[in-house]
């Protein structure tokens, strides 16, 4: 971290700053969410250069389509993750990465690659340890959807488990996360 200060705003302040096209809005947006979003993108595309390009595209798209965000329907981060998912999946499909990626062993993905943990934010390292203790079956389903951009239908086919089980495991994983973070 060569920069000493990261700009951080409350969510309503950030949204307002982006809507008013203020420079502090774009800086806070990047400082607050670049690492979380980049983590997701990198896990989906498995390529550092492509992931950085996609992160830039994502921020530009977030900036330009902020008027489509409706805070009554959910948090800004939820909206941004959906946007990042769509952009990343579109990119993969356009480059026909989908098939090769599906053939990869999920356990070999970046998510569980210890080489990458060196780049994790220091303050989330403890959390990461805890997350590793989640029910592995539940975590696998959630990771497919959240960090691979699968739909729950695709996850059901991928893991060869019924749709209902997929839903139950997703819920179970998130309940564990809620307990963990509260």
């Amino acid at each position, binding site marked *: 971290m060569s920069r000493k200060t990261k700009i951080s705003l409350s969510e309503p302040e950030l949204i307002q700053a982006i809507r008013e096209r203020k420079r502090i809005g774009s800086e806070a947006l990047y400082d607050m969410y670049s690492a*979380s979003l980049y*983590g997701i993108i990198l896990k989906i595309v498995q390529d550092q250069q492509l992931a950085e390009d996609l992160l830039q595209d994502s921020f530009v798209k977030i900036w330009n389509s902020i008027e489509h965000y409706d805070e009554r329907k959910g948090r800004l981060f939820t909206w941004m993750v959906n946007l990042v998912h769509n952009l990343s999946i579109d990119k993969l499909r356009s480059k026909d990465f989908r098939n090769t990626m599906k053939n990869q062993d999920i356990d070999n993905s970046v998510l569980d690659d210890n080489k990458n943990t060196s780049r*994790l*934010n220091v303050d989330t390292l403890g959390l990461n340890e805890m997350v590793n203790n989640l029910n592995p079956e539940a975590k696998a389903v959630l990771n497919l959807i959240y960090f691979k951009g699968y739909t729950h239908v695709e996850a059901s086919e991928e893991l060869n488990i019924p749709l209902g089980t997929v839903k139950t495991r997703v819920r179970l994983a998130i309940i564990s996360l*809620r307990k963990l973070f509260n």
Partner: protein
Amino acid sequence: MENLKAYIESGVLELYVLGDLPVSERLEVELMLKRHPELKLEILEIEKALQKYAESQAIAPSENLRPEVLAAINAEEIKHEPSVIAISTNSNFYKYAFAASVALLLLSLISLINLQSELKELNNKIAVLEQSNQQFSSRVNYMESQLSNAKQSLQIFHNPQEYTLVNLKGTANAPTASMTVAFNTQKSEVMIDLASLKMPANDKQHQYQLWALVDGKPIDLGVFDVQNDSIGMQLMKSIQNAQAFAVTLEPRGGSVNPTMEQMIVMGEI
């Protein structure tokens, strides 16, 4: 509430937050959220948990990406600035439009003034034409009346069996005077041929009076004026029989008895 619990436990809210629902099911969830605001708390908890999860798995991108991304966003802002330029060209457009309007207005005013003076001229011409037209039509009226008078005279002169023409000759008072009277005994009509009048014009105080002499007694047949250029027949009072006609100059309106000293013409039938 049991239903709501089952709804929560179905896992649909998690899929909603993950953006993993088809549009119809997403709208269903949004409808449920409106009906049951308490579900929003559940959604919020799911969102927070997933955000924390993402944060726990966060990976910082390379240091040099930050200025690139911020520059890209800034470039977007500059890209949007052409709208400002568009506005300024717009205002230029309005400037030109305004100038054009003013020029057009001036042109209209000039042509309006031109038209007005032309209109005035035309109105004057029309007034002159109307005046000459009036003169012309009064002249036509006059000629028509003269023509009908002449026709009347001609009718009488062409019927010698109906009308007896009596020539009255000047007396010692006016030796050069003369006139013609047409007399129809069947209709008891007496008419003066105005064209034949050769007598001095009477003044305003006097008029000529025509008399019929019946068995030596003068009978009044009415008064008439002598004007130059009169034509046609003037009908006088009627009488059945007469031996002679005579004209005297009398005070305006005529007299009961003729002033014999002022007898101008006379003629026997």
